[in-house]
């Protein structure tokens, strides 16, 4: 009896330890998710603009971002005095977006309804009060008149900005593409040793001239548009009385946060979220959207999946179905499992040496010799990045597929063979379909790993800012040699490498939340697919 009771006591303790460990794990995961989600979700919510009157007579206007106890400078211990961190913006005037204000020095605070927040293309946010709007034929000085004129003018400027962008992306991009083609054709003739005065060269030269003329035409149009964009400015007064003229063409939007109702706030939130997800980054990625990074991440993961599945599944089928069990297959399995433990940066180095310089260099020498010494495939790109990640994740797919295959009973294989099916028929019609859920599990794990991987990509084609997406309107439409942006690297770059880390923090949280959302939704899709397959393949029994 005594012994039994002792055993029960020990079992209880062990149960408690394991349950406690699980609870701590869950708590940490949930905590992480809640932190990221709440910070990420609140990044676009408009905060009230607070005007401060300080003890020394100065004034300030800004958004309160945090509040903390002030540490005693001598002991480092926290005192009862509190201070607040205020985003005051106006970086072009003050040099910093944030300042600390001791609460003891605040004489009064208010939330003026007419205080305005300007989101600008450059220099970040501006906080102040509008005093005038000046443009060709307009000179408004009353708030009502200013906003009326501004709405009209700003719509014009936004249209002009869009037009400029469309010209840059469209006609000018096309002309550049054509000019590059002519240049490559000329180089090709040089390389082939053609005479300097052939008819072909004359045609090319003539074509180049027409293209350059077209380019000059577009450029002139562009310059005219840019000039018109520079006209018109909104004059604002800051909290400490400085007047500043902001070109209307530089303004993304104006917000009167203290005057917004809930509906207005929601609309603004949606607008900012939309800009974040579908917009392009600006100000060294610390503002604007992250669409190129989002696109690059998803495309890279998809490409990686396309490559890793056939590769891993075929390898696993060979190992499990064809290879005779022995020291050789055991050695291969050990190697595969160890491959999963190799630091990812090592894969990056291998990808650079093997894919980029080896295969890419060879492709360039064979097919893109005209462009050399500018590399085409001989430099990092989305194809090589995907292949590198495929290599990194192939062990996961192999192991999961092998488990899936092993779970198909030998009796089922024999049943098929006894009907006169060959080994290949058995494999393709019975074994692989039955093991498909296992293969999908492998793919899920591989995608989850690949979407979050950053280190190896830094040397095989991921960049801070890619001028073009890997997919566009120029044939062959999908440009696998292009460099790409990635959410993981974006987080690192914006959060830790940008000159203005404090101002970018909300964006970092939002980007993190988005990356987690992508990984989770990719996984969920694959899990749903797998479950559907499972229910279709097998009944409740067995």
């Amino acid at each position: 009896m005594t012994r039994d009771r002792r055993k029960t006591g020990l079992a209880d303790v062990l149960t408690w330890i394991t349950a406690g460990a699980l609870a701590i794990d869950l708590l940490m995961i949930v905590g992480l998710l809640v932190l990221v989600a709440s910070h990420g979700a609140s990044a676009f919510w408009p905060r009230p603009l607070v005007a401060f009157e300080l003890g020394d007579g100065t004034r300030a206007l800004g958004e309160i971002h945090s509040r903390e106890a002030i540490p005693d400078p001598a002991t480092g211990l926290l005192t009862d005095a509190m201070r607040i961190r205020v985003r005051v913006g106006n970086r072009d005037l003050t040099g910093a977006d944030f300042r600390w204000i001791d609460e003891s020095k605040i004489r009064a605070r208010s939330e003026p309804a007419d205080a305005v927040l300007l989101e600008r293309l450059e220099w970040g946010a501006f906080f102040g009060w509008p005093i005038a709007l000046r443009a060709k034929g307009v000179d408004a000085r009353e708030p009502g008149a200013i906003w009326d004129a501004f709405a009209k003018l700003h719509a014009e400027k936004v249209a002009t900005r869009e037009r400029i962008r469309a010209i840059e992306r469209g006609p000018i991009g096309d002309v550049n593409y054509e000019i590059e083609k002519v240049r490559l054709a000329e180089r090709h003739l040089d390389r082939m040793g053609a005479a300097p005065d052939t008819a072909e060269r004359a045609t090319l030269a003539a074509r180049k001239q027409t293209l350059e003329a077209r380019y000059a035409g577009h450029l002139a149009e562009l310059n005219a548009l840019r000039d018109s964009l520079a006209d018109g400015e909104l004059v604002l007064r800051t909290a400490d009385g400085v007047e500043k003229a902001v070109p209307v063409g530089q303004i993304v939007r104006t917000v009167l946060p203290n005057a917004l109702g809930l509906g207005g706030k929601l609309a603004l939130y949606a607008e900012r979220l939309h800009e974040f997800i579908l917009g392009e980054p600006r100000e060294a990625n610390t503002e604007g959207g992250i669409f190129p990074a989002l696109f690059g991440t998803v495309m890279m993961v998809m490409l990686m999946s396309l490559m890793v599945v056939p590769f891993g599944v075929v390898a696993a089928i060979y190992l499990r179905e064809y290879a005779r069990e022995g020291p050789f297959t055991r050695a291969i399995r050990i190697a595969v499992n160890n491959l999963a433990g190799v630091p990812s940066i090592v894969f990056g180095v291998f990808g650079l040496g093997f894919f980029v310089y080896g295969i890419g260099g060879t492709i360039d020498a064979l097919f893109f010799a005209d462009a050399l010494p500018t590399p085409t495939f001989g430099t990092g790109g989305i194809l090589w990045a995907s292949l590198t990640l495929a290599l990194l994740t192939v062990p996961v797919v192999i192991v999961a597929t092998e488990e899936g295959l092993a779970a198909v009973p030998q009796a089922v294989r024999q049943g098929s063979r006894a009907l006169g099916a060959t080994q290949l028929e058995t494999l393709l019609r019975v074994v692989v379909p039955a093991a498909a859920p296992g293969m999908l599990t492998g793919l899920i794990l591989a995608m989850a790993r690949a979407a979050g991987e950053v280190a190896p990509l830094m040397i095989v084609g991921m960049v801070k800012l890619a001028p073009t997406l890997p997919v566009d309107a120029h044939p062959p439409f999908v440009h696998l040699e292009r460099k790409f942006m990635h959410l993981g690297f974006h987080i690192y770059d914006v959060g830790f490498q940008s000159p203005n880390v404090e101002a970018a923090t909300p964006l970092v949280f939002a980007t993190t939340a988005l990356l987690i959302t992508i990984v989770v939704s990719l996984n969920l899709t694959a899990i749903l697919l797998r479950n559907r397959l499972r229910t279709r393949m097998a009944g409740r029994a067995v």
Partner: protein
Amino acid sequence: MTLPVSPTPPPVAIEKPAIRVDRLSLWYGDTLALDQISLDLAERHITAFIGPSGCGKSTLLRCINRMNDLVDGVRVEGRILFSDRDIFDPEVDVNALRKRVGMVFQKSNPFPKSIYENVAYGPRIHGTRSKSELDGIVEQALRAAALWEEVRERLQTSALELSGGQQQRLCIARALAVEPEVLLLDEPCSALDPVATAKIEELLLELKQRYSIAIVTHNMQQAARVSDYTAFLYLGTLVEFGATRELFVAPREKRTQDYITGRFG
């Protein structure tokens, strides 16, 4: 090649043998598992293989459609004649052989597919594409396996949702769908309850009108109930082979008598 004198008793004369096993020996690696077995399977009759565990009865059965080829380290000597040809002849297409000599296993092994797909699998493998033709084959095979009435409403549901006995009959239907001439059953009822067993036995008696059947069984009563001929194997040798009634009523060998009366086994 001269083979040593057979230690097995002289084969019983069977008028129309579907399969003739002739001095068949089999080794797993260095272990002799079958020693000079000779017997005939009568056409459109049921032949039962009985004997204690490890006597080689399943091994013998699996030789007849060469399923032992799939086991590593198996070596065979002797002949098995089917349609006047030695099935071990290197020119024999083993998959064509297995189409003509179907097999049902001890544990039911339906594919993780629908009932319909399970039965249609064999015909598809052997080249039947037309949907209407497949529908006909599936219905016919399920009727022949006495399963049609139970599953006709749910052909597209997973075969794994059927009961154990239904699964085993589905496996029989699956084997019948490729229109074999011989059906080999390896302890088909060992995992089934008495009701399901009775159904299968009834089915076997029905099927022997059209197929030559060999069945391995542990169950003496079953052998006595369903089979026309019985072979008793012990430690890899064929101890006694004869008409079931005679073998059970008046065994010539003492070992046979001991076994069927339950003195060992």
